[in-house]
């Protein structure tokens, strides 16, 4: 059980909102500041809505996961974006058998 836990210490950061300059820089900047390695990024523009999803490694971060999530959400708010930070497991369990 514990090995499984260590393997899955990754979180999904989803950013949704109106496209503006510097979204990726801002979000990845915060991740870098607290030692969260960005493992993958995809982004799409749906109509004029910007949607970016980022997979980050959270096992070696320097602050509490919940605090990091809070910081990312607040940064999103400042830019008028919705930021959701959720543990990877929820997507794996809901969308994979």
């Amino acid at each position: 059980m514990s090995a499984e836990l260590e393997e899955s210490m990754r979180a999904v950061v989803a950013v949704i909102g109106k496209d503006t300059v510097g979204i990726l820089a801002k979000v990845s900047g915060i991740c870098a500041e607290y030692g969260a390695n960005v493992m993958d990024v995809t982004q799409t523009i749906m109509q004029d809505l910007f949607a970016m999803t980022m997979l980050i490694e959270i096992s070696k971060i320097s602050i509490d996961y919940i605090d990091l999530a809070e910081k990312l959400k607040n940064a999103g708010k400042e830019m008028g974006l919705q930021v959701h930070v959720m543990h990877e497991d929820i997507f794996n369990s809901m969308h994979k058998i």
Partner: protein
Amino acid sequence: MLNTGDILETIKMIQEENLDIRTITMGISLLDCIDSDIDAACGKIYEKMMRRAENLVKTGEDIEKQYGIPIINKRISVTPIAMVSAATKQSPVKFAKTLQRVAEGTGVNYVGGYSALVHKGFSAGDRELIESIPEALAETTNVCSSVNIGSTKAGINMDAVAMMGRTIMNAAEATKDDHCFGAAKIVVFCNAPEDNPFMAGAFHGVGEYDTEINVGVSGPGVVRAALEKHPDANISEIADVIKKTAFKITRMGQLVGTEASKRLGVPFGIVDLSLAPTPAVGDSVAHILEEIGLESCGTHGTTACLAMLNDAVKKGGVMASSHVGGLSGAFIPVSEDAGMIDAAVCGSLSLDKLEAMTAVCSVGLDMIVIPGDTPVDTISAIIADEAAIGMVNSKTTAVRVIPAIGMKEGEMLEFGGLFGSGPVMSVNKYSSSKFISRGGRIPAPLQSLKN
């Protein structure tokens, strides 16, 4: 890498379609707290429950933050109090007050299990507990009560049915200044499940673990939104869409349940894969039925749509969880479902149609407001009818009706919050008193020759 579409779908379900974990309920056995001295028993109960549930609310909140899924309620269910109070030979109200102190001490929003199981007959402590229910519920705010009066194996205890009609009326009268809310905290069951995480009917059965975690999921809004994307699908395709959606919802419940059980060091019991509505717009089971193609819930075709919905939810959910239990199915509480409220107000949904609907869905007549001058024998007869449906069909049925003291048909009783509001619905004016006054037992039904 995860699929962006899947990620956005999950976020949309939570943000816009009211997907949530309705409850994490910790079941705690009180059998080792029995004592002939009522104060000693209450002391042991308080100590054990506080110790076991100390971190329940905090753990729920932590999981909520980590996974980003709202977990609405954290609750506790306990061994039916009648079993614990029997040895004291005193009024069990003190136990209700102890459960109330635990609710306040742990921060859970309800403690269920002020209960008695009398499906065949009364044993020591059962009558005293039933008689004390109105007082216990009037003097506490977060304690729920349930009584099992029938089962497929035992038949229906008509003496208990008669008592429960009176008990419900007394509970409403004792809380008439508080929207008759006492009656909303009593459920009368036939075939009560022992691992149900949902209130007001949760209690911790004697065949369960000493302490366990049960999870109830929700998600009528998600099902309705999924159906909205298939306006021209036939019913086979609709059933498939519901199954797929129920699978996803239940997987989330399974994840949260296993995580909570791991963090709390308590075995994981079951996921109750129910569609539990709330009065919030977009979180209604009635709206799912209307999305399928009924002008208003309660019209002809409602029972058929509900039967399909209930079955598809179970089929989709069963594979998503290692252990499914509780009530599992679609709930149809009137006051807690915006679509049901509208249908009852416009006259499309009657008590008689609701009774028919309960034959094919989970639970039964739930959160239905009836006139305050309804004779107690009529309430008992409503219970008997509902229990008969459960008994014959080998399923759980329940009655939670609220006599609105001083109110007449057509007026609205407002509860507020998750309990919503309900129009006072009409009941049949003809008497059932002679039938109820006979007492005795309805024998258990035949299990073969099914027609």
